[in-house]
């Protein structure tokens, strides 16, 4: 550097003079320069000229030759107004999206389910948590409610942190959480039986809920509570006063169930009576001629055959639906094929959405002709609703990203950085995208792992969306440059998500774009999580010494020459 200037030079070089003036030379060199300039007129003149040049520069730049432009004078008020407008627009869009989602999807479903006999206060509760599948969901909903409460509380603290003291905010959140936790959970008695060949004898009466598991299960006795079954081959010929919940490979019910039957993962053959509803997910459903269902049928099974009597409505989705029995309510069917035999009676309207025209026998007694709508596969680009929904989904993605970035800013930043390691992200993405759901399903087989498996599936499903947000942010950064600040980061995310979403709507290619984006994003998130769990080097570990050519605070400026 200049402070090692050659001693043998007659005059000081300009750099040394400048550094001397700017007080950037070390003490020894500063004294040398000072001594030299006492005797050298030329160098003294140079120093003086440089100093005048500095002053001229400062004066020229400081002079107020230009008033503040009116655009800038009005900027603050405009910015405030524009921000209000943007917030209004954002909330308006979110509200419109929520309303459209409710009226477009939730409400029709709710109406259908209500018609099918699922009375209740809200869709989520009646469809999943209240009575449809598994009573263990009651615990899940409590947990989800707490998580939702914590999320809302966190967002509340984030927005209110400038208005209320941190302690007050935390107290508020914890009070809310405590209140949620204090809600008493319903207590119930239960009994567990696990044998390879399990039989509940005819004379046996279980005075509580029964959890039974085994390769071959026979229930001939009476269960006064609910019966929860897991096994390969199960037959219930006894009397169940509560609900029957089954995850069996094959379930035959020839007895009486006063409550509802909820079966998933296997075939159900019903020959007995059911007081309330039947819900089936997976396998085939056969309602025998002698069977009687007091309530409704909700089926997501492959093949559905209804030969018995159904007291209320039928809601079925699957490959093929055959009605040869008596349905007193309406039927809403969405399947590949619908066959209504001559012996069939349907008391309400029949709505059928499928690939082929329904096969209706002329002898069938129907309250009204079948209303058939041909199913369309793939997006309908000519329909304006398609574009409306694309915009709504886009807004939902951006809002989703915004919330996640606000809740986990560091993780989001790390995930975006990880996404730039393309190979590692893609490789890990393949592993996580396919491996995690398989592992979660395996975990669900055991009773203990059910909660972990289901929770993992939830997280995995949410991460499919977050992955697209991460990829969108990477694309945004390609276009607009990197940033570590929150709102510019969100801006890049929004721009990128728009582009990614546009690409996913391209016919034929869009699906692949989406797949690649999910693969890439999910891999990036996994990589970021993996890095977090990597051990950090000890602080005492030796590192390369830092070289400071001109250490600060060791400089001195000598007295200016006269």
């Amino acid at each position, binding site marked *: *550097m*200049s402070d090692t*200037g050659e001693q043998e030079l*007659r*005059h*000081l*070089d*300009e*750099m*040394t*003079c*400048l*550094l001397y003036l*700017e007080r*950037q030379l070390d003490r020894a060199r500063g004294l040398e320069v000072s001594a030299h300039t006492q005797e050298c007129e*030329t*160098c003294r*003149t*140079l120093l*003086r*000229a*440089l100093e*005048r*040049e*500095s002053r*001229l*520069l*400062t*004066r*020229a*730049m*400081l*002079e*107020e*030759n*230009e008033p*503040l*432009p009116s*655009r*800038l*004078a009005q*900027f*603050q008020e405009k*910015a*405030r107004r524009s921000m209000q407008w943007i917030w209004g627009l954002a909330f308006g869009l979110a509200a419109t999206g929520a309303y459209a989602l409710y009226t477009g999807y939730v409400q029709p479903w709710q109406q259908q389910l209500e018609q099918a006999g699922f009375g209740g206060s809200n869709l989520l509760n009646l469809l999943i948590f209240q009575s449809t599948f598994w009573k263990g969901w009651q615990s899940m909903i409590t947990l989800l409610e707490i998580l939702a409460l914590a999320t809302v509380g966190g967002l509340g603290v984030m927005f209110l942190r*400038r*208005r209320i003291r941190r302690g007050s905010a935390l107290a508020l959140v914890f009070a809310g959480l405590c209140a949620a936790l204090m809600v008493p959970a319903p207590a119930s008695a239960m009994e567990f039986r696990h044998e390879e060949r399990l039989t509940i004898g005819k004379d046996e009466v279980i005075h509580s809920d029964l959890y039974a598991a085994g390769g071959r299960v026979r229930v001939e006795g009476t269960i006064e509570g609910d019966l929860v079954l897991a096994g390969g081959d199960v037959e219930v010929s006894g009397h169940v006063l509560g609900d029957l919940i089954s995850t069996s490979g094959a379930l035959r019910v020839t007895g009486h169930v006063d409550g509802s039957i909820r079966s998933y993962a296997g075939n159900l053959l019903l020959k007995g009576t059911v007081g309330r509803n039947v819900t089936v997910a997976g396998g085939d459903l056969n309602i025998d001629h002698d069977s009687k269902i007091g309530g409704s049928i909700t089926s997501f099974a492959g093949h559905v055959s209804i030969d018995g009597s159904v007291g209320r409505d039928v809601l079925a989705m699957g490959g093929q639906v055959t009605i040869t029995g008596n349905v007193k309510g309406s039927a809403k069917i969405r399947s590949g094929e619908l066959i209504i035999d001559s012996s069939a009676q349907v008391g309400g309207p029949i709505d059928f959405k499928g690939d082929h025209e329904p096969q209706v026998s002329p002898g069938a007694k129907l309250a009204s002709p079948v209303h058939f709508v041909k199913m369309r596969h793939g997006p309908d680009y000519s329909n304006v609703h398609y574009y409306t929904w694309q915009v709504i989904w886009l807004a939902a993605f951006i809002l989703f990203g915004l919330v996640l970035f606000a809740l986990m800013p560091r993780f989001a930043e790390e995930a975006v950085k990880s996404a730039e390691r393309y190979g590692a992200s893609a490789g890990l993405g393949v592993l996580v995208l396919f491996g995690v759901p398989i592992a979660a399903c395996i975990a669900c087989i055991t009773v203990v792992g059910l909660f972990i498996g289901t929770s993992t599936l939830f997280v995995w499903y949410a991460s499919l969306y977050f992955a697209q947000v991460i990829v969108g942010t990477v694309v945004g950064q390609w276009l607009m*440059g990197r940033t570590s*600040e*929150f*709102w*510019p980061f969100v801006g890049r995310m929004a721009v990128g998500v728009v582009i990614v979403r546009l690409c996913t709507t391209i016919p034929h290619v869009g699906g692949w774009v989406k797949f690649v984006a999910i693969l890439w994003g999910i891999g990036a998130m996994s990589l970021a999580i993996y890095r977090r769990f990597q051990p950090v080097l000890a602080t005492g570990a030796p590192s390369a010494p830092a070289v*400071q*050519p*001109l250490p*600060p605070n060791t400089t001195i400026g000598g007295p200016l020459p006269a």
Partner: protein
Amino acid sequence: MSAPGITEPTEAIARARAGDADAWGELYREYAPAIFRFCRRAMPTREDAEDATMEIFMKLKGKLNQYDPTRSFSAWLYKVAANHCWDILRRRRIRQDKETEDVESLPLEHPEPSQLEKLIEQRSSEEVRKALEKMGARARMALVMRYYSDMSYDEIANALGVRRAFVGVVLLRARHELRQALEGNVALAAGGAS
């Protein structure tokens, strides 16, 4: 380092940090002229300076929590402004300066002192401002950071992304470029032998 002629409104800063919109207004009115002047010197056009000023104040809202109240607010503000302006200029790829490696090989001879003194005496502030506008982005930026906002060599090094040891070289080279723009005298700017 502090903004010329401005005593720091600590109360307004504290209120603005707490989210008070009126305090923001006060800070904006107080500092916008100085920051606009800074941008006016650093950026090539008036429109660029206006845009940059607005962007800096928008950015400031998100960054204010990072400000350490024990230090000078205006110094911090200038640092934010300098970083922002340099980011814009760098993104536009209008750096006309040579890179550090070239700067390193700059001859360290001094010009004819009396000739330089004469040049300085003859030039007005207006001429210097016009000359600044003709300069390369990095050279102009370096001069603005050092002689307008009084930033330290460390701060300039951080903002420009060069090693601290080269800040002096960058400044000297910028002065040469300024003299060239003022006079068009190549011999003087390049450094004539004594």
